[in-house]
């Protein structure tokens, strides 16, 4: 099956931020970050290097940290690390520049790092850098405050810095939650641009993404502070005309520009843009766009904290893009793309599991098979689009009639199945009552364009026998019962004669 790998990674990233932000000082934060990174990647070794010093090292016996090798990995001269009594480990490093350049180095014994994991490590390095800058700002302010009694202004600054950190955490958690909850990609990207604007406080934020079929062009995927009518109608533009965002994509790095705004920018931005900065975003490791922030304030300059914040959000966009692809694959594997019901594969898996549970616990389980009578005629006379609409409506109505512990599936065409859990004994009539409700729900008119169509269904019901754990015979009985319902006049339910 497809694992929701990216969702796991974004979870790890926010957890890392939560951990390092909650720690009281820089020293504790780097150790916390190293441990959390090692845990997430199941790595034996995690090291934080800052200003060419080992700030934290997890995985080596005390006093046996191989500094030279670690520096060589940070410099990309080595990609293996020998760990005592473990052996040669795959090693990887993600770095940051700025006033206090550093690296996060990880080493793992059993397997090299995938592209997604490399993204995750890069994101972790960014968040660590950002957190360390915040810690230093706080520490510096704290020191200043202690040195003098100019309390009021500095207290306010200290408070602002703390609030900034809290807001960053809240925003990143919000984005992570949006991804976890499988909100649509455009919604997630909107929330990223919102958060970037809120945190950096600049007028303009834009996310440019490469066109899937034409990677030399980019389109505006989400924006804030631009002329709506221009932004909305903007056709994809060549990378070379996309200003700072295009440069960041081509350079695969952060670009800042204080020069003359491009013609495109003049059209898009309602004021006179004075400075812009863009960071690349990636999908599965490949640069697929850029996150841009810009200001019309004449005095605006971007400091370390600003560039780091932008990079952190750009990493989140990267994870959201990668995740969207993974989720899509996962849903395709498990859910019918038209109706959202379980696929035959998922249904059989659940049925097999629930049958063994039912056998063990002595709980009644019933299987319903049904198809729509004369569905083909709807398809033939009203077209496939109407047929699809009909199936979606019916699927929705079926779900409404079931409980959380039941499972509904579309087996393909107009064939459906439902597994009913905890239905008592066959004589109790529970499953027959559910089938009657389903028949009534399905038979209600379905509006299709200007017409209303009425379809019926034929339902076959089979109860699992006591101790029955194989789905095959149960499905055969339900199928036969459905056949009898069809031949008995359609629009009705039949209980398997063998029950």
């Amino acid at each position, binding site marked *: 099956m497809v694992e929701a790998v990216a969702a*796991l990674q*974004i979870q790890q990233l926010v957890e890392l931020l939560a951990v390092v932000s909650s720690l009281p000082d820089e020293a504790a934060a780097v150790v916390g970050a190293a441990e959390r990174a090692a845990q997430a990647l199941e790595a034996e070794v995690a090291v934080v290097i800052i200003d060419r010093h080992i700030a934290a090292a997890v*995985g080596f016996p005390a006093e046996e940290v191989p500094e030279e090798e670690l520096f060589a990995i940070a410099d990309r001269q080595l990609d293996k690390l020998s*760990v005592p009594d473990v052996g040669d480990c795959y090693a990887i490093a993600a770095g940051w520049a700025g006033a206090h350049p550093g690296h996060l180095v990880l080493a793992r*014994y059993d397997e090299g790092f995938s592209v997604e994991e490399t993204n995750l490590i890069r994101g972790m390095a960014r968040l660590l850098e950002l957190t360390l800058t915040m810690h230093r700002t706080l520490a510096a302010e704290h020191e200043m405050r202690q040195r003098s009694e100019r309390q009021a202004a500095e207290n306010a600054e200290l408070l602002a810095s703390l609030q900034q950190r809290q807001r960053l955490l809240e925003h990143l958690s919000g984005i992570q939650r949006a991804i976890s909850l499988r909100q649509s990609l455009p919604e997630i990207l909107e929330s990223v641009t919102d958060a970037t604007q809120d945190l950096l406080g600049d007028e303009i934020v834009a996310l440019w993404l490469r066109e899937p079929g034409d990677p030399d062009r980019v389109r505006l995927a989400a924006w804030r502070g631009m002329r709506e009518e221009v932004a909305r109608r903007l056709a994809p533009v060549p990378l070379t005309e996309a200003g700072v965002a295009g440069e960041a994509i081509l350079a695969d790095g952060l670009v800042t520009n204080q020069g003359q705004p491009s013609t495109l920018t003049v059209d898009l931005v309602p004021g006179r843009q004075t400075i812009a900065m863009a960071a690349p975003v990636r999908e599965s490791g490949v640069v697929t766009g850029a996150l841009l922030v810009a200001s019309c304030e004449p005095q605006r300059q971007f400091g370390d904290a600003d560039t780091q914040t932008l990079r952190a959000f750009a990493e989140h966009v990267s994870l959201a893009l990668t995740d969207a692809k993974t989720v899509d694959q996962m849903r395709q594997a498990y859910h019918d793309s038209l109706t959202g019901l379980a696929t035959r594969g998922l249904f059989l898996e*659940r049925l097999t599991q629930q049958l063994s549970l039912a056998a063990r616990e002595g709980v009644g389980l019933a299987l319903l098979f049904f198809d729509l009578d004369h569905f083909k005629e709807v398809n033939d006379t009203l077209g496939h689009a109407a047929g699809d609409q009909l199936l979606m409506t019916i699927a929705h109505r079926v779900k409404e009639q079931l409980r959380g512990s039941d499972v509904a599936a579309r087996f393909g065409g107009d064939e459906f199945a439902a597994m009913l859990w905890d239905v008592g004994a066959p004589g109790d009539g529970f499953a027959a009552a559910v089938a009657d409700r389903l028949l009534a729900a399905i038979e209600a008119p379905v509006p299709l364009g200007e017409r209303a169509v009425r379809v019926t269904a034929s339902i076959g019901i089979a109860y699992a026998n006591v101790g029955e754990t194989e789905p095959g015979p149960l499905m055969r009985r339900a199928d036969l019962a459905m056949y009898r319902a069809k031949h008995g006049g359609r629009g009705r339910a039949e209980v398997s004669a063998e029950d």
Partner: protein
Amino acid sequence: MSHELNTADRPRWMGVGRSAEQDSHAAAAAAARAAVVGADPKLVLVFAAITHDPAAVQEGIREVVGEVPVLGCTTHGEIGPGGPLDGSVTVAVIGGTGFTVTSAIAQQVSGRQREAGVELARAVNRADRRPYRALLMLTDGMIRDQETILRGCYSVLGASVPLFGGAAADGWRMTGTYVMADGKVLTDAVAAVMIESDAPLAVAVRHGWRRLGTPMIVTGSENGRVLTLDDRPALDVYLERLGAPADAYTDVNAFVDFALPRPIGVQRRSGVEARNVSTEIDLAGRTIGGGSSIDLGGLTWVMEGDEESILAATDAACRDVREALDGREPIGMLTFSCAALRAVLGDEGIRKEGAHLEEAAAGVPFAGFYTYGEIARVRGIDGFHNQTLVVLALT
């Protein structure tokens, strides 16, 4: 009961002795006598039912072995040759010329888990060491966040030392478990011993749980508890997914009975980890949780296991540990299984588990207990588990 092995041709040995006598002193002495099957005993491990007096148990052992380090704990059942027992004293002794053991105790561990781990690791980490090592730890089962104790150890020892052990149990009374070391009876404590050997050691861990259906996302969590799954009260989602009986929604005991054999699975890079949710129940708040945290945004699954899957995991853990030994025949194994597994297996099931262990051991002595948490760090930095079987093999 004695389970001897021909040790004449080996420099190192392990022996296991068990006694079902009710008198703690006498039971411990009898078990210890049966377990000393070679010269130069180096370490005594004792697993005693909660019904025994841990002080008398240690005295009984001391009478037989003299000044050899004795570490042990109370249990929810003792494992060894002849099958699992309730109410016994089960003793394992290792000895011979190729071992060095260094033990230490950390006390008042709650609230300073990491510091305690660092303390223990420093105390047992000798400079002049034998080529193969493993750190064995026995913890008070009532200590929360035991993972952090392991983190403390790891920060000193690094990846080079496998960690192994278990959390003491109290026969499901949940009133207090005891750790035994140096003749003391301890709570809120961890006893650790570095076993150094001239020959390889191996650690393995396995669980026998299967994921059910589609994943659920932790949409709300606080203080290690899961508040919501897929945006609905976690407790209800969990029970619904498993088709729980009505009284599990409202009755604490019914919930415990239902949840004990059905852990929550937490997605990790290399697979799904089981988390017991039957110990800290919140019917009023509709949340779920256990002693270790399940984080926001995590992918979780309801899980189930049965006798077949759990016994398959037992076999797999034993197979893993033997494979890690590269064909060397073990001289003995320590086998720690989870107390919660007993709820799934029942008395008959744990007898089968014992039989599987016995078959896998193939004549090699083995001993262990049913724990409130298992420790096995082989890869990565995490090593505290729920509802698993962990095995340490010595050669």
